[in-house]
């Protein structure tokens, strides 16, 4: 991944009447990134994506795609971008292939010739002639991804790309994204609720809460901050809690499932901790260093209400 920014926003904002859906949003996506844009429902993810694509006008700030103003240099920018916004929508009285032919005509170039490959890549190779009104939600989602990739774009913006897909479909789309990023250097900007998928697919994430970016960085960097997390099972649990609370260099962390304790402790002192607990008469069944998952990080970050 290079450090060349492909997508940048600077204090981007959108107000609907008195309601500020997005405010002061500044993020950067570099070339080759698979960027996960995370946030709860109503956080401002889709509003941000709509602003980037020119569907709605920002009321503050600016955005740049490939260093260009997407409002003034709209055609130049959109020729290099593929996008899927929310639930995929198509003309129901046309087949999947006919819908893609419309998209291809708008894109120009070799897009029309890529239709068969695009359908194959998303697993619709044998359903291209079926009218979209007969498609399941998963098939429409796949067709939505196909149309986003049809123009062989440098930047692909996907809003909830695996919505409605079964586990096999989710795996296929993840592999498709990883393959394109690896082979063609395509940059992806994904918004998703599926934190596990984002953790597997993305190298960088941005977390938006109440319209503002609260965190941005590489996944490894963000989750690396959780070094020192330890999962404990000890009995009696109440006495174990009391004991751990009294140890100065150990911090109890909330949110552990019943029967388990989560603590923060220096990684080099785990053996010492284990010995002290045993000497205090506690039965230690498990003491395991943890790498926090993105879900745990996201929820523990206080983003969840």
């Amino acid at each position, binding site marked *: 991944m290079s450090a060349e920014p492909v997508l940048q926003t600077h204090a981007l904002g959108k107000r609907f009447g008195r309601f500020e859906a997005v405010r002061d949003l500044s993020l950067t996506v570099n070339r080759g990134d698979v960027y996960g844009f995370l946030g709860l429902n109503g956080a401002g993810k889709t509003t941000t994506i709509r602003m980037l694509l020119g569907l709605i006008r920002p009321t503050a700030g600016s955005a740049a795609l490939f260093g260009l103003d997407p409002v003034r240099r709209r055609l130049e920018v959109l020729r290099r971008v593929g996008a899927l916004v929310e639930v995929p929508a*198509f003309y129901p009285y046309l087949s999947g292939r006919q819908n893609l032919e419309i998209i291809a005509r708008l894109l120009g170039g070799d897009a029309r010739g890529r239709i068969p490959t695009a359908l194959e890549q998303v697993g619709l190779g044998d359903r291209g002639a079926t009218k979209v009104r007969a498609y399941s939600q998963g098939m429409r989602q796949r067709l939505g991804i196909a149309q986003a990739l049809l123009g062989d774009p440098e930047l692909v913006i996907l809003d909830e790309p695996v919505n409605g897909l079964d586990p096999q479909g989710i795996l296929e789309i993840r592999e498709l994204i990883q393959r394109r990023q690896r082979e063609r250097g395509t940059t992806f900007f994904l918004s998703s609720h599926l934190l596990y998928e984002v953790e597997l697919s993305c190298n960088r994430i941005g977390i938006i809460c109440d319209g503002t970016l609260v965190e941005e960085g590489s996944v490894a960097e963000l989750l690396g901050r959780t070094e020192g997390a330890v999962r404990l099972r000890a009995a009696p649990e109440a006495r174990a809690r009391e004991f751990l609370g009294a140890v100065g260099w150990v911090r109890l962390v909330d949110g552990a499932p019943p029967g388990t304790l989560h603590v923060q402790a220096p990684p080099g002192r785990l053996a010492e901790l284990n010995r002290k607990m045993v000497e205090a008469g506690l039965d230690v069944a498990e003491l395991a260093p943890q790498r926090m998952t993105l879900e745990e990080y996201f929820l523990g970050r206080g983003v969840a209400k």
Partner: protein
Amino acid sequence: MIRRTLTLLAIELGKLRRQAFPLVCLLAIAAVTVATAWFTARDCRNGFDSLARCLQVAVPLAAIFLVALGALQFSSEASLGVLRLILPKPIHRGEWVLAKALCLCLAAALVLAVVAGVGAGAVQLLHGFAEIRDATFTDHVHRTREAMVQDFAIGVGLVLLPLVAAALFGFVVSTVIENSGVAVAVATVLYLVLTAAVSVGLHQAGPYHGVPAVFTSFLTWPIDAIDQFSRGVYTYKWKRPDILLSLVVPAAYAAAFATGAWVWFRRKDVLV
């Protein structure tokens, strides 16, 4: 820009011919035209009289159909959610507006051609077309067949721009209202109310039905003129000021509606 607009126009025409609604309505209007020819065959004195009656019935229906078709243009795209599929592609919104407006103009021309063609075909089969003779002094020819054909051509030609204006009236409503059913209902009702409200009796300053400042006034007077010619009555004449007004006023409204749609749609936030 021209190439992109023509590409969009080709896409719009392709979509139009694959939808059931326009085809069903066109067939219904054609059926009404034929039925009118059938039922008026006995009462009419000649084929031109019968054809005029067919047009008097079918042209207002065609106008209502075109208002509805116009009202579906962007509202159906919004209802389907397709705006968020198309607008992030490398096109300008203004080009899409222009392409849809051109598509509606072509649709109006097609509908009028179908009405006139089907009507003429049905009347030819049922009645045939002969010169207009006096009812009492049958040796006296009021108007030759060639002259009547020319009168029909002028009359039908004058109806085209009011039909285009009607379609674009619906079109501007479609850019404002995102629900397709509501857009069609509002546009149709507004159009009918406008037509009724400005029809303050016949024979105003000109032959038009109603206030000459409104495009709906120019829809049927050319057909009524032909109807009178076909019966040997010459209350109406093709006067240059009347013809000019019949061209300029609907054209101005059509341009205003198209411009309104363009202005509104260009700046609209697409939230659907």
